[in-house]
């Protein structure tokens, strides 16, 4: 819940963002460069957050199976297929001995020219419910990302506009979340594949100094020497 993963879909791309902290015991910041992205294919990737062991186990299992499909059949699975396969694995494992407490975002760019919507973005929760949307997020950042997305997302969003939206979300998280996101890793998936963009940082909060008036008490205002 404390880890943030966000996806924003634009005209021909998807921007994926994740906070890079690992926190332990509720208060210790162990690591500032945690990677939550798992590559599924050349044009498809998954962000995962939740129970630490489950996240890695499930993501690697799904990722390797998708790569296996490519090795056996010589062709990569589309983002739609990757997402549905992932959802199915999550749903079937829910009622088995090994369920995974992992929330996922699957994003990709379809290489099939006949697809209406080439940039694809899916969110899968730990129960295996999948939904597709223009802005998706998991964790406490959902409150900020979805609301800011409702306000700022528009048709034919450009990369700059998506990154500006993301910076607004990160600033808001920095201001309002106790689990401060020291650094946010940003990646983009488009026709050229998966690329890493510059890190994003929340903007520094400047707070005005308290005024000297507050140092005065009512006792100070009494004249005790008369």
């Amino acid at each position, binding site marked *: 819940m404390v880890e943030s993963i966000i996806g924003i879909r634009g005209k021909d791309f998807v921007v994926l963002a994740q906070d890079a902290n690992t926190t332990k015991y509720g208060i210790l910041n162990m690591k500032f460069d945690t990677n939550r992205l798992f590559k599924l294919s050349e044009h498809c990737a998954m962000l995962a957050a939740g129970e630490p062991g489950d996240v890695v186990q499930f993501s690697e299992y799904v990722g390797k199976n998708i790569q296996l499909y490519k090795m056996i059949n010589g062709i990569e699975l589309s983002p739609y297929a990757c997402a549905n396969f992932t959802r199915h694995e999550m749903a079937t494992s829910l009622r088995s001995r090994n369920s995974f407490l992992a929330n996922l975002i699957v994003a990709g760019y379809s290489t099939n020219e006949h697809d209406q919507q080439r940039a694809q973005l899916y969110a899968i929760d730990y129960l295996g*419910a999948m939904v*597709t949307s223009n802005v998706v997020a998991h964790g406490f950042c959902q409150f900020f990302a979805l609301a800011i997305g409702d306000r700022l997302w528009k048709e034919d969003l450009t990369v700059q506009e998506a990154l500006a939206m993301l910076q607004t979300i990160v600033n808001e998280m920095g201001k309002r979340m106790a689990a401060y996101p020291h650094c946010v890793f940003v990646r983009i998936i488009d026709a050229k594949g998966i690329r890493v963009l510059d890190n994003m940082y929340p903007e520094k909060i400047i707070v005005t100094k308290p005024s000297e008036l507050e140092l005065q008490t009512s006792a100070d205002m009494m004249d005790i020497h008369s």
Partner: protein
Amino acid sequence: MGDDMMSYNGGVALAMKGKECVAIACDKRYGVQNRTIATNFTKIFQYGDYCFVSFCGLATDRRFGPYFVFSLVIGLDPKTGETFVYDSDNIGAISDNVNLATVGTASDYIFGLGELFFKPNMNADELFEATSQSLLNGVDRDSASGWGVLVYVVEKDKVTVRELKGRQD
């Protein structure tokens, strides 16, 4: 709400009979308790040329595991025009072939409106109006349903799909 599985994701669906036509409609909200995550989550699936089903309940159980879902099934015999509307709860208690059936978090509200608007032997247009109005107004009373309505009207020669925009909240 707590941990009530049937209202965790929210959603509602309605099915109604007419004269040689049947309609099924659902809302489009997908949420997690009191948070709305997406507004394009329709709950109707086509199982045959003249057969549609709808599932309301826990979103993960859709299509792969009928556990915490209530179901609606509608059908039409294209030769005879015989209509079928059935509903089922999550443990498989199936109703008789009824005129009106609802499932979901707002099912009680929509039942009331559905009974009000229903008339026997409606034609396809009247059926569409009755179904739409029941759903549009019923979901306004339920915080876990809404954000638009999808209506399928199945007749002997065609299936008409209409998307309605109601209160977007």
